[in-house]
């Protein structure tokens, strides 16, 4: 079981809810992923269309916990106000805090992120900050009151996997007791398995599932991958070596001596 603030979850796969071909496919993908947490957002509502109301009904029917985000926010005040609005609408103190600093990479503005995290943690929010693998930023976020970190694997939607393996491994080693969730940039299930093998606690996937040719099948594949990665981590992987070591015992080898 994974403990995130005061809540526990069995699933190590969180799913984003955006960019699916249809609401029905989204629902099937969440079930195939066996996800217990999905991310949601807030957007301007048209009084005529009421699209948000239909979406919210669908999510509630799925019976999953929601993790609202502050996607699209570029300033601390925007992010903090969006968090307040999300808490009211979704009825949760969880917030996936995003403060975007650069539009081409959607890289977090880590300075604004720390400032916003400090404000929201002091107000009782349980903050899941979308951050980089930077150790110093991670320290500042924890000092601000965060008890979970969400480092990126690669830029959002890029599908590149774990871009900075060394940095992410260092982050995992440095904060051994902090739940770390790889958020963003995963493209295929092997990326997710790798993250779990490295000791990350969970992954959050959206585009890789939603934009797959068959999102439901891909969701199931990611679910299997995180289970395999977690099992491998718990089983204790061997250390990589530079030279070969024979797996078949050499004692008693024929034609020797």
């Amino acid at each position, binding site marked *: 079981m994974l403990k995130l603030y005061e809540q526990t979850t069995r699933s190590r796969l969180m799913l*984003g*809810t*955006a*960019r*699916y071909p249809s609401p029905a496919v*989204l629902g099937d993908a969440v079930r195939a992923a066996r996800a217990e947490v999905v*991310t*949601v*957002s*807030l*957007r*301007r*509502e*048209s*009084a*005529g269309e*009421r*699209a*948000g*109301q239909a*979406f*919210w009904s669908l*999510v509630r029917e799925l019976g999953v916990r929601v993790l*609202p*985000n502050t*996607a699209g926010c570029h300033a601390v*005040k925007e992010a903090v*106000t*969006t968090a*307040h*609005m*999300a808490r*009211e*609408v*979704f009825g949760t103190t969880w917030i996936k805090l995003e403060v975007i600093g650069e539009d081409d990479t959607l890289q977090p503005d880590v300075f604004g992120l720390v400032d916003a995290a400090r404000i929201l943690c002091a107000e009782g929010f349980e903050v899941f900050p979308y951050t980089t693998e930077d150790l110093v930023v991670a320290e500042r976020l924890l000092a601000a009151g965060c008890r979970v970190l969400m480092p990126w694997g690669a830029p*959002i939607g890029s599908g590149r996997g774990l871009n900075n393996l060394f940095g992410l491994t260092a982050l995992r080693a440095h904060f051994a007791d902090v739940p770390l969730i790889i958020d*963003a940039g995963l493209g295929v299930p092997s990326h997710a398995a790798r993250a779990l093998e490295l000791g990350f606690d969970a992954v*959050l996937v*959206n*585009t890789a599932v939603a934009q797959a040719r068959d999102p439901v099948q891909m969701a199931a594949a990611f679910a299997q991958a995180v289970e395999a990665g977690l099992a491998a981590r718990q089983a204790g992987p061997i250390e990589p070596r530079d030279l070969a070591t024979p797996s078949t015992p050499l004692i008693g080898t024929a034609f020797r001596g």
Partner: protein
Amino acid sequence: MKILVNGAWRETQRDELAGALEELGYGGSVVSTAVNGEFIAAALRARTTLADGDRVEVLAPMQGG
């Protein structure tokens, strides 16, 4: 009175936020609101007075990653 609702100018006869939302068709919707960048909790909408030119954001649940 003219107010800017989600980036579009709208006319309302009501001068409090709750009434304006009702008049503009948001009655019964699960939404969250802000006026001039400040969050206004649902419980405060009836007591929140609007002025000509105010910027009102009306947000609802949406897909997100």
